[in-house]
């Protein structure tokens, strides 16, 4: 089971966090601090896993962003690594050549996508296609709502003229 997902920049700035097991705010901060200290200085050739408090953290660096997931000690690390990659691929497909800024300014989108991939700490959907389908269905809905809203405001504007 995945305990939490953490996206941190090379400077140690948090870009996204999702906690699947209960952690208090204090524990969260502590975990982020400890893991940043543990992961960020690691060289490129070392392995992508760190052991941390009896759990394992699998991380992978994409450009300036570290994607980390914390898994149980019995879990398959390579599998975790691929879950990260899967998420990144879906993000990439959605944003079109994703970069850190996309995630900074659209973190809620990143959350929605993550929610489609992982639920309750388990990988729920391994098909990129169906994830994209759901997300775009939601987005059309949003677009529709927007159009409605704008047409409404147009109508109001016209009426008040």
């Amino acid at each position, binding site marked *: 089971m995945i305990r939490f997902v953490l996206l941190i920049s090379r400077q140690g700035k948090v870009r996204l*966090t999702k906690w699947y097991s209960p952690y208090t705010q204090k524990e969260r901060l502590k975990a982020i601090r400890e893991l940043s200290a543990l992961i960020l200085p690691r060289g490129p050739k070392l392995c992508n896993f760190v052991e941390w408090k009896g759990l394992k953290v699998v991380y992978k660096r994409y450009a300036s962003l570290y994607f980390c997931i914390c898994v149980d000690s019995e879990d*398959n690390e390579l599998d975790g690594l691929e879950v990260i990659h899967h998420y990144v691929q879906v993000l990439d497909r959605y944003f079109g050549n994703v970069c850190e800024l996309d995630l900074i300014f659209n973190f809620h989108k990143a959350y929605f996508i993550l929610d489609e991939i992982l639920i309750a700490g388990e990988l729920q959907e391994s098909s990129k296609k169906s994830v994209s389908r759901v997300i775009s269905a939601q987005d059309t809905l949003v677009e529709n709502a927007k159009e409605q809203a704008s047409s409404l405001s147009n109508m109001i504007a016209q009426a008040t003229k």
Partner: protein
Amino acid sequence: MEQLKTIGRELAMGSQGVWGSSKEFLELVKTIGEAKSKAEEERIVLAEIESLKRRIQEPDVPRKKMKEYIMRLVYVEMLGHDASFGYIHAVKMTHDDNLLLKRSGYLAVTLFLNEDHDLIILIINTIQKDLKSDNYLVCCAALTAVCRLINEETIPAVLPQIVELLNHQKELVRKKAVMALHRFFQRSPSTVSHLFPAFQERLCDRDPSVMSAVLCALYDMILVNVKPFKHLVASLVSILKQAVEHRLPKSYDYHRTPAPFVQIKLLKILALLGTGDKAASENMFNVLGDILKRSDSTSNIGNAILYECVRTLTSIYTNPRLLQNAAEITAKFLKSDNHNLKYMGIDALGRLIKITPECAENHQLAVIDCLEDPDDTLKRKTLDLLYKMTKANNVEVIVERMVEYIRNISDNHYKTEISSRVIELAERYAPSNQWFIQTMNQVFEIAGDLVPQKVAHDLMRLIAEGAGEEDEDADSHLRSSAVQAYLQILKEPKLPSILLQVISWVLGEYGIADGSHSAEFIIGKLCDIVATRPGDDKLKGYVVSAITKICAFEKAAGQTVDLIPECVSFIEELYASHSTDLQQRIYEFHAVLKLDRDTIASILPMDASCEDIEVDKDLSFLNSFVESALANGSRPYLSDNERRGMGAMTTLASNNDAGTSSLLRFQPYEKPSIPEPAAALVTASHYSQDAIDQHDIYSKSSSNDGTRLKLEGVQKKWGRPTYTPEAQVPKNPINISDSVKVSSSAAGKEASSRNSSAPPYTERKQPSQEISAEKKKLAASLFGSKAGETKAKPAAKLQQNGTSKKAPAKPTSPPAPAPAPPPADLLDLSDSLPQIPSVDPVDQLADLISVDSSAATSTTSLVEQVLDAGKVATKGPSPQASLQKDSVSRQVGVTPSGGTNPDLFKDLFG
């Protein structure tokens, strides 16, 4: 260049308006992004929180604006600040009809709240409504929230709807419903246990994503109990086969590997189902062989499957051919340049050697490479492997490596873990006692207070018992070398408390045994120990006992002991100590010093920490006393039950007792318990518990009003100036005798069972035959905790190795001897105070010393009688005798473990 790109992005975003977020928010994100220091970021965020706090509470915030505020709250919280003031608004937003807002509300709520948050109750209703929604996206949003927010108590509120959703027409909803039920299973298995058939039905869902969601749930359920799922083996194997043969939809392919995540999940489940089940395992061999053949070892995901396959193969019933393949894969991993694969290889090797230990030898060099690798993760993993590979012939090397490793890390979690492993290995395979003691000292020095107390006890016991053979010379040599080593260690600054405790005990017990150190020297050292750690009461307790022992040894040897000034001032200080334990020790110390030479020699004999103390459980030495009391017209003892049966029996009550008791009756207080003030006054709760029980008995016998007397008793007990134990003990001398008689005859069974569970007068050890049985058990079960024992019983050791080969990874019992014999408690000064009759021990001792002339001459003989195993002492005033016995055991560092048995005294003083 990168900067240019960034600017371009930003411009593009600004023009897009980025999904309706306001300029303000973008500005905020940007300024935070550009913050030069942590402090600056902090300042910006705090300002943002202030403005949000203000604005979010304004009346009539437009909903869209509110959504943005909430997103900003999410951002603020993500940066590690508290945004709890806005939670309620996020909850409100989930009520919104607009899906967009609702989803944002749910997202915020799932990020903000834990499942036990108070606000959850406000969301349940919305969730219930949304689960019934026609719009599947609403359903999904609600289900996602359910996975995060529903706790054990609220499961029933949503369970029926979710079960219904299992048959929803949209696969997305079915999948999330399965995941939600899985979550419920994790929270409280009983709530969904009736749904196992429904899960199995979903396993055959036409959509693979639903099937793979079921696999997650199945894995957890099988982990709990394999049996109900055994029949699934065939269908799971066929699903795996389909996946491997590319028969799942193409969209599940990942890097040209067919549905790898599904494969891995299935392999995990099969590993559970096939464990120890030959028939089930045989079903799997075919498909496993297929996977090994087909998987692509050049891609990461292919290797992930291969690794999982190796794991499965090592846990199911063995198949030599497939194991051979697994070994080849492992070898490939280990030889790879990729650190990740090396790591997996080490892990796989650790699993393989459980089944085929000899395969480790082929990879010696690779393993050594990994051990020397600068990558800490890899190094630690390799130490794990070594731990699994440890045998008697390589233990020294491996332990040395481990000790070296923990010396250099600062992470307490792993320091604890690895040091406990070192201790375990040392206990199991130690080649010599010398080595064992050295290793332990190293561990104590490095890991210090992370080492469990028990390890210290075991070490002390080893030093005390020696090799366990009848070789006194070797033992005493071991001891004096231990003393030497510890005196050496004491020169180092900053030793952990637990090591100092061991040192104090060893110095006290054996410091002057070989005659090379004078008592003054050792006492000086002991005082130095205390000086380094002024606030450590437990350590002081050890030191006082040690000094007592040394002084007693000296006196017994006919020499006078002149306490050095530091020691005197140290002792003076303790008279006023807040710790009653320390006070008692110090009073006893003085009492012992006043005794004459022979008495001391029998109370605290030299090198007797391993001797057994026989306890006369029936207190038969009191028989004559009882008889004479009966002859003088006392009433015979009635057990507690009998007395209660007699109801209005108040004849024993003295008049004034009865008189006062009628004034105060607190009916509700039926059961005696420790009153708070008493517990606060003294740290020794057992002690006071005893006192209370005793007084309770008095009161029962005297007036049937336990409550009043109990309270009074406590005050008397602990109010120092008015403390008059003699007034109570002689008050009912006849009762004592009565009780003894009955407990020794009629209630003998009861008493003995109590005694065996927790003897209040602690024997230093169980009777000797019990010890030997325990030793046998010790040797037979994986732990020859002492090198001496392993040496003494080479056959047993071989057997150990044999068994450990089969399952070295999961030692079946804790590192130290499992059947913890009483000696473990021997040295335990930790939490229970010496349990003695609630009368003041010092006063009793004083009694003992100042016994009238006839008693004075018989004291030594009395003591001998008491100590004499097996012999039933039949004369002498009993409390003194038992007290002496108790003092013997305590002075050598024994703490009776019988903290839980205050009942015994009921009979005694009834």
